[in-house]
C-alpha cells in the first residue's frame, strides 16, 4: 500500500509499505478515504518531537471504511464509514472511564505523560498513522464513530481533531457571558477555537498571529478581531491596552512549541533545543490574562521542559487548564453543531492534495505557501 515514510527532519516521501495487520482482538483495519496534515505534524516534520523514528508513518486525522475487524470488535462492522478520533483509547482504564480519552493508560508503553496517538512518534506509542491507504486502528469498539450518512466527508475528517481541539480549547477557558477571549495562533486550531469560543457567550474574541493572510481568514471565518503582533512594540502591553488595562478574561494558547515573536524563546527553544521549543505564546497568554483569569492550552509542547513565567501564574492567581482534546467525549455535541449548520469545518480546507504528493503537501503547509490554512490528503483508494 502507499503510505508516508518519514526519513528525517524535513524529509518525507510516499512509497509502497506493508499492509497493516490485526495484532489485537479489538483491532480494525481501516481503508483511508481522507487524511489531513495537522499543525502538530509539523513539530514531527521539523524534528522537534523526541523519538520520532525513520520509517514511521504520520497522520492522526483520518476517516475511512472498515475493511477488517478483530474477533472482539462489535461496535463497528466491515463496510462502515468511520471517523477515527486521534486519541487511541481503551475505554476501560480509570482515565477513559472519567472521559479523559486523550489520557488513556493502556495505549502507550513509552511515555506515561502522553496517551496513545496515531502517527505521533514513539513518545505517543509508536503507532503508524493515517497518512496512508490503510491503517491499523486499535480499540475499535471505543474510538471509531460511524459517520452520519448525510455528513460531508470533509466535515467528518475535521471532526477527528481540529473541531474537538478548538472546541475544548474554548471549553477549558471557562468562558462566561460577556468575557473577552484572546486566542494566540491563527492556524486551523486557533481559528476553530476562536469560532467555538462564541458558543460560550463572550462579548469579544480576539486572535493574535503574525501572518496576515491567516488573520484575514480568521476575521471572516471566526467573526473575531485579528491583530498582527509584528506591528506591535509589545503584544502584552497592546492586549492590556485594548482590554481597558485589565487583561483578557481568558487566553488560549493554540500555537505550541514553534511560536515566533521572542528572540530568547526562539534561540533557546528552536535553535539550541535548551528547552522543548519556544513557549512564546504561552508566555504571552500568562502575561496578558487578567488576575484570576484562565489560560487554556491546546498548543502542543513536547518533553522535556519549557521556560514560562510560572511566578506570574502564582502571583496573578491564574488557573492553567490544558489537555489533548477528548474527541470521543465531545463528538455527540460537535456532530450536532455541524449537522445543524452552526459550524462549517470544511470551510478551513484550502488545499486538497493526492497522497502521492505528500512531500510537497508538507512543505506547502510548513512554509505557509499559497496561503495554506488546512491540507487534506486524498489517497487513491478513496471511492
Amino acid at each position, binding site marked *: 500500500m502507499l503510505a508516508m515514510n518519514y526519513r*528525517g527532519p524535513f524529509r518525507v516521501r510516499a512509497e509502497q509499505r506493508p499492509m497493516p495487520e490485526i495484532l489485537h482482538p479489538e483491532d480494525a483495519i481501516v481503508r483511508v478515504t481522507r487524511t489531513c496534515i495537522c499543525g502538530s505534524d509539523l513539530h514531527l516534520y521539523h524534528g522537534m518531537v523526541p523519538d520520532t523514528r*525513520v520509517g514511521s508513518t504520520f497522520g492522526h486525522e483520518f476517516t475511512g471504511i472498515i475493511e477488517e475487524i478483530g474477533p472482539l470488535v462489535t461496535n463497528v462492522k466491515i463496510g462502515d464509514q468511520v471517523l477515527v478520533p486521534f486519541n487511541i483509547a*481503551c475505554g476501560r482504564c480509570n482515565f477513559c*472511564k*472519567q472521559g479523559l480519552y486523550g489520557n488513556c493508560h493502556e495505549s502507550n508503553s513509552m511515555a506515561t505523560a502522553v496517551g496513545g496517538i496515531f502517527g505521533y512518534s514513539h513518545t505517543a506509542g509508536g503507532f503508524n498513522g493515517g497518512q496512508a491507504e490503510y491503517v491499523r486502528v*486499535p480499540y475499535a469498539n471505543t474510538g471509531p464513530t460511524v459517520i452520519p450518512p448525510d455528513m460531508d466527508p470533509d466535515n467528518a475528517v475535521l471532526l477527528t481533531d481540529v473541531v474537538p481541539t478548538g472546541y475544548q480549547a474554548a471549553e477549558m477557558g471557562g468562558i462566561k457571558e460577556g468575557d473577552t477571549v484572546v486566542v494566540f495562533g491563527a492556524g486551523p486550531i486557533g481559528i476553530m477555537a476562536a469560532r467555538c469560543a462564541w458558543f460560550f457567550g463572550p462579548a469579544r474574541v480576539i486572535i493574535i498571529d503574525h501572518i496576515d493572510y491567516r488573520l484575514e481568514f480568521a476575521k471572516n471565518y471566526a467573526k473575531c478581531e485579528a491583530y498582527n503582533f509584528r506591528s506591535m512594540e509589545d503584544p502584552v502591553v497592546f492586549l492590556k491596552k485594548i482590554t481597558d488595562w485589565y487583561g483578557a478574561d481568558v487566553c488560549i494558547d493554540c500555537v505550541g512549541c514553534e511560536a515566533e515573536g521572542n528572540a530568547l524563546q526562539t534561540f533557546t527553544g528552536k535553535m539550541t533545543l535548551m528547552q522543548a521549543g519556544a513557549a512564546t505564546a504561552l508566555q504571552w497568554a500568562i502575561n496578558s490574562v487578567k488576575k484570576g483569569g484562565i489560560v487554556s492550552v491546546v498548543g502542543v509542547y513536547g518533553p522535556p521542559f519549557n521556560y514560562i513565567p510560572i511566578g506570574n501564574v502564582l502571583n496573578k492567581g491564574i488557573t492553567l*487548564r490544558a489537555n489533548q482534546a477528548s474527541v470521543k467525549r465531545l463528538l455527540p455535541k460537535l456532530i450536532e453543531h455541524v449537522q445543524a449548520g452552526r459550524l462549517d469545518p470544511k470551510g478551513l480546507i484550502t488545499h486538497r492534495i493526492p497522497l502521492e504528493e505528500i512531500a510537497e503537501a508538507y512543505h506547502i503547509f510548513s512554509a505557509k505557501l499559497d496561503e495554506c490554512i488546512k491540507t487534506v490528503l486524498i489517497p487513491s483508494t478513496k471511492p
Partner: protein
Amino acid sequence: MENNNFDYKSIPGWGMDIDEKNEPTYPMKNYTGDDHKRSDYEKPLQQPVDIELLKSTERPAYSAVFGTSSPPSGLSGMIRRYAFEHSEDRYRHWIPLILADRVNAWEGIIDDLKKGIIPNIPAERGWKAELKYNPGGLVKKVVLTAVIGAVLLSYFKRKK
C-alpha cells in the same frame, strides 16, 4: 489506595470542608472517584509483545496495545535503549532520544543506499512546491547553501 496504617477519618475536621463545586477539571473530566482505585481497573487483553518494545520506567507493565512501527535498531537503537533506562523526568531520557533521531536520519540514508535506493532529498523536502510557489525563495536558499559551502571548503583547504 487506602492508607491502612491509621484511621485518617478520625483526624479532627476530616472532610468537613468538602465542596462538590470545587472541581476545576469540570466538564472535561467526569469525576467518579475511580482515580482512587489507581491501577486497579479492567485491563484489556495484552497484545503479544513479539518485537523489541521500549518501556517507560514510570510504569510497571506494557500497555495493553502498542505500536509496532520501527523497532529500535543500529546505533540509534543503542542510544534509545540507554534513554529508556531513565525516567521521563530526566534530561538523560529526552536529549539522547533527540540525538538518536538525528543519528537515525543518517542511518536511513545508509539503509536506502544499501537497498539500491538513492534518496531524492530535494523531492523529499518538497522543493517542487517551493519552485512552484516561491521560486525566488528557492533560488536564495540554493545560492546561500552554495556560498556557505564554498566558504567552508576554502577555509578547510587553507587549513591544510
